[in-house]
């Protein structure tokens, strides 16, 4: 192909993607020393809304953005810091992401990589955060409509929830680890609304069966499942550079048919193994316990190849 040695440092052992900060992920995942940050911390673009709640801001408002190289290709990147406000999207944070997608329209990088770790709208910024998430969604779809590949990586401890769970599914390609989670409402919110019988938020095994990377991979809601390892995410992101799929009417009609079939076939399932069985995937009853590489060898649901 291009005979490229992907300039990755020789790491002696696995580095947990989940345990890395956003900036550590960027430093390790992208080609060494190629990340150039836009609106860096020294510019102090902090949130105007947090002080009134007695919460300190972050110099980068919880997201680092810029350009870099991945296997030699120019990419634009954003990494959300899950430790700051749960990665929630506020006014400035959202505007940085919007600017990144808009710049991608102009500068046409190979791809935009979003290292997503977020609870969705930053509740401390309520209305401003809700509008911000929507602006991010529009800007992402503008970039895709212009032929820019959008890749989302999900593997942080906070997962990718809320409005960001919707935004993630607007991308071309999602890579998740077993440790990652992708969903809409957090289990705590569901439990608060409908009780512990509906969803016991402290039952970690349940939470991961319903929202975790394994389940999402098996039903086809993410495209690659990797180990909790920065190098594995990097390799998966490189594969994803070729994943662009235009959003056309036939594509959405196919998606609709798939989602309808799933609704019909899953019936009233409320746990993952039952749903897998009803969808005819992962008939191996060991599926919940297989190692990631063994899981990838299983046949997933019969879906259009993405």
């Amino acid at each position, binding site marked *: 192909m291009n005979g490229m040695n992907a300039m990755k440092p020789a790491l002696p052992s696995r580095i947990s993607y989940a345990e890395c900060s956003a900036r550590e992920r960027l430093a390790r995942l992208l080609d060494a020393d190629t990340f150039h940050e836009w609106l860096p911390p020294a510019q102090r673009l902090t949130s105007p809304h947090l002080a009134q*709640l007695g919460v300190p801001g972050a110099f980068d408002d919880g997201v680092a953005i810029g350009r870099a190289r991945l296997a030699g290709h120019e990419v634009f990147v954003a990494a959300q810091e899950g430790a700051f406000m749960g990665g929630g999207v506020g006014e400035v944070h959202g505007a940085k992401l919007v600017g990144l997608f808009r710049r991608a329209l102009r500068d046409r990088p190979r791809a935009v990589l979003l290292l997503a770790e977020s609870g969705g709208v930053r509740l401390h910024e*309520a*209305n401003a955060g809700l509008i911000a998430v929507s602006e991010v969604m529009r800007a992402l779809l*503008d970039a895709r409509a212009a032929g820019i590949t959008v890749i989302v990586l999900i593997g942080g401890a906070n997962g990718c929830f809320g*409005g960001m*769970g919707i935004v*993630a599914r607007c991308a071309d390609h999602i890579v998740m680890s077993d440790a990652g989670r992708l969903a*809409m*409402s957090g289990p705590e919110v569901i439990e608060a609304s409908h009780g512990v019988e509906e969803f016991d938020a402290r039952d970690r095994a349940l939470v991961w069966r319903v929202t975790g990377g394994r389940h999402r991979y098996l039903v086809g809601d993410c495209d690659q499942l990797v180990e909790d390892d920065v190098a594995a995410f990097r390799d998966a992101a490189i594969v994803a550079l070729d994943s662009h799929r235009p959003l056309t009417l036939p594509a959405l009609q196919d998606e609709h048919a798939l989602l309808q079939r799933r609704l019909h076939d899953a019936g009233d399932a409320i746990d993952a193994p039952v749903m897998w069985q009803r969808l005819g995937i992962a008939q191996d009853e060991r599926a919940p316990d297989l190692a990631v590489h063994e899981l990838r060898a299983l046949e997933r649901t019969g879906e259009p190849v993405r």
Partner: protein
Amino acid sequence: MNWSELATALFGADHDIRADGSLLHGTATLARQSIAVVGTTDHASIGYALALRQAEVVLATMAHHPGRPVLLLIDTQGQQLRRHDELLGINRAMAHLGCCIDLARRRGHRVIGLVYDQALSGGFITSGLIADGCYALPQAEIRVMRLPAMARVTKLPEALLAELSQANPVFAPGVDNYVAMGGVRSLWRGDLAAALRQALADTPTDDTRAVDGAQRGGRRLAADVAQAVMDAA
């Protein structure tokens, strides 16, 4: 104003909008132009299935009525908070609805959102907020989350959040705050049919919300920050 009164105010007798459960759909005529109408009522909880039903209407409009404007009537309490929906992938269903609406826009269908009662969170992200522009009736309310759940998640006292929701523009659910922030273009009063005609004529197809928010003073930083990314070395 319930959806039926709203439909009459907008279209008189020139519509066949009906409610199927909490799904609203139909076709209306305004100034001799056909308009596809889809939305929800009864403060609908948008689950996986209801998201798909709405998407179906938008897809059918694109397939059978190219260029026909779409009016989204919004009354929702947000996404359905059930384990079953999460298991099925409600975020994917909602993204699908959002992408259908967004594609309709790109294919030349003018998409107008109208919050006529309430809108929350995910239910709003995949309706009014992905339209060409969103409007609201003056008494409508838009929220991110109900206060008790918000207090639990943020660990902020509910009493504090309640107080902020009275007058603080970032928290108060009144739609005038959303107008000030640029999230809602304007409120419709009086002649609603005229307001809709105006919206169909005037609503831009670019996302001007951050610029609007800066001009109106409700959201001062977003536009400048996005521009700063464009200009950064």
